[in-house]
């Protein structure tokens, strides 16, 4: 297609946007609302997912060793654990290291425990990493039966609950977003229908003098595309700014809890592209619906 023809189609598409005033406004608003909610939802969902995986990665089995065990017995226990097929790595954390970590992680409040250094109430322990997080239960159950094991702990319940929350919110969000997408589609299809009807005389003449069907369709297609694209501008700007703010406000705090939000870049760029894509998709689909239905060329 020649540049001049493309320019003409874009010009005609823009003219229709202006001419349809309120319908254009309604369509763009619908796309905007849809994409804003989609964006918020994506930010929450993807971050929850990331956090869940981080916690999942941290899932480890802590084996508290009986205080009565001597060094040789502890080595035996270690070998037994290492022979389990699901086990990836076993590391030893002495009670002194354990206390050190505890004091450090609690910051100022940890200083209260300094006095315990002489009379350490903690136990030595083995920390087991499994190949896949789902195996923690199996490993824990096994290790419980070994000698010199005082107690076995693992954090599976928390992770499972978190994944459950992610799953439920994903389902609720999807239903909501699909509903909104169809509303936006419907409004765009109607806007394009108005344009087609208001231009019926022009279309009739174009057909009579031998304009190709593609030539007749393009402006309506572009109008839909523009509705979707313009509708995605506000959500993209708001969500990028919002996520930047969220990240700078909360990430530092979350880091102390050993979890991290997704880094601002490239996340917001990916988010912007996804939203723009959805906007364009809604616009194009909406206009194609009307073109097929009302433009028998």
């Amino acid at each position, binding site marked *: 297609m020649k540049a001049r023809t493309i320019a*003409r189609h874009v010009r005609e598409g823009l003219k229709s946007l202006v001419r349809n005033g309120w319908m254009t406004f309604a369509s763009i608003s619908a796309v905007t609302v849809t994409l804003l909610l989609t964006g918020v939802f994506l930010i929450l969902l993807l971050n929850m997912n990331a956090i869940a995986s981080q916690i999942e990665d941290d899932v480890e089995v802590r084996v508290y060793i009986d205080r009565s065990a001597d060094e040789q017995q502890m080595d035996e226990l270690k070998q037994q654990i290492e022979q389990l097929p699901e086990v990836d790595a076993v590391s030893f954390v002495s009670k002194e290291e354990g206390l050190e970590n505890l004091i450090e992680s609690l910051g100022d409040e940890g200083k209260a425990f300094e006095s315990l250094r002489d009379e350490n109430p903690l136990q030595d322990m083995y920390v087991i990493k499994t190949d896949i997080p789902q195996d923690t239960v199996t490993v824990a159950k096994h290790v419980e039966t070994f000698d010199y094991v005082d107690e076995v702990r693992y954090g599976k319940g928390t992770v499972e609950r978190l994944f459950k929350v992610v799953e439920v919110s994903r389902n609720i969000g999807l239903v909501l977003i699909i509903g909104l997408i169809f509303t936006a589609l419907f409004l765009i299809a109607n806007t394009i229908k108005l344009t087609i009807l208001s231009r019926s005389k022009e279309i009739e*003449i174009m057909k*009579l*003098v031998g304009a190709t069907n593609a030539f007749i369709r393009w402006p309506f297609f572009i109008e839909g595309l523009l509705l979707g694209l313009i509708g995605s501008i506000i959500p993209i700007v708001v969500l990028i700014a919002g996520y930047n703010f969220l990240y700078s406000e909360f990430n530092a705090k979350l880091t102390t809890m050993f979890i991290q939000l997704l880094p601002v870049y490239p996340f917001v760029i990916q988010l912007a592209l996804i939203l723009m894509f959805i906007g364009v998709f809604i616009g194009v689909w909406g206009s194609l619906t009307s073109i097929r239905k009302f433009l028998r060329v």
Partner: protein
Amino acid sequence: MILMEDVWKTYPNGVMAVNGIDFKLDKGDFVYVVGPSGAGKSTFIKMIYREEKPTKGKIVVSDIDLTSLKERDVPKLRRKIGVVFQDFKLLPKLTVYENVAFALEVIEESPDNIKRKVMDVLELVKLKNKARMYPEELSGGEQQRVSIARSIVNNPELVVADEPTGNLDPDTAWGIMEIFEEINNRGTTIIMATHNKEIVDATKRRVVAIEGGRIVRDEQQGEYGYES
């Protein structure tokens, strides 16, 4: 230029508009199509530029076989035919110049050619000095001249006119006929459906009369043959 063989047209609602027409029109000819309202004239005319498809029979226009013409190739046919209507079908928001240029823009003619062709054709219909005016500022006759200019601006081989003088007073109608004569003299084939007895009788051209969806009369130098 036009060849029809045993052409039939029945509309989906059961109306039998054309019932077995054979018709031939040579290049450069000028023919009137006459007959009472509802006789099938309009359907006959519409089948030439493939606004309607025949239910049966063969139609060839300007070497294009319409019976096997694919939907996407219809524009090729339309670019060889100029169509003029009783109600002009001008776009009110465009000037005279823009209305005529529109026909070339939408078939992606180059801007240089558009300007030259539009000015030439406005000269032919004697509206060069009104190029910047809008249709509503023109008389009925002038509007029809714009519509004719639009139909011939792409140098079609054939002009199809459906009652082009139907909305005009007799004097104005004669003015329009002069333009069609001029176009015909330049070699363009013309087929015109009309109710204008005075013009048909005075110009002594070929007349085809349609009644009940059939050609009942086809005379060289014919007459209108009905009470006006």
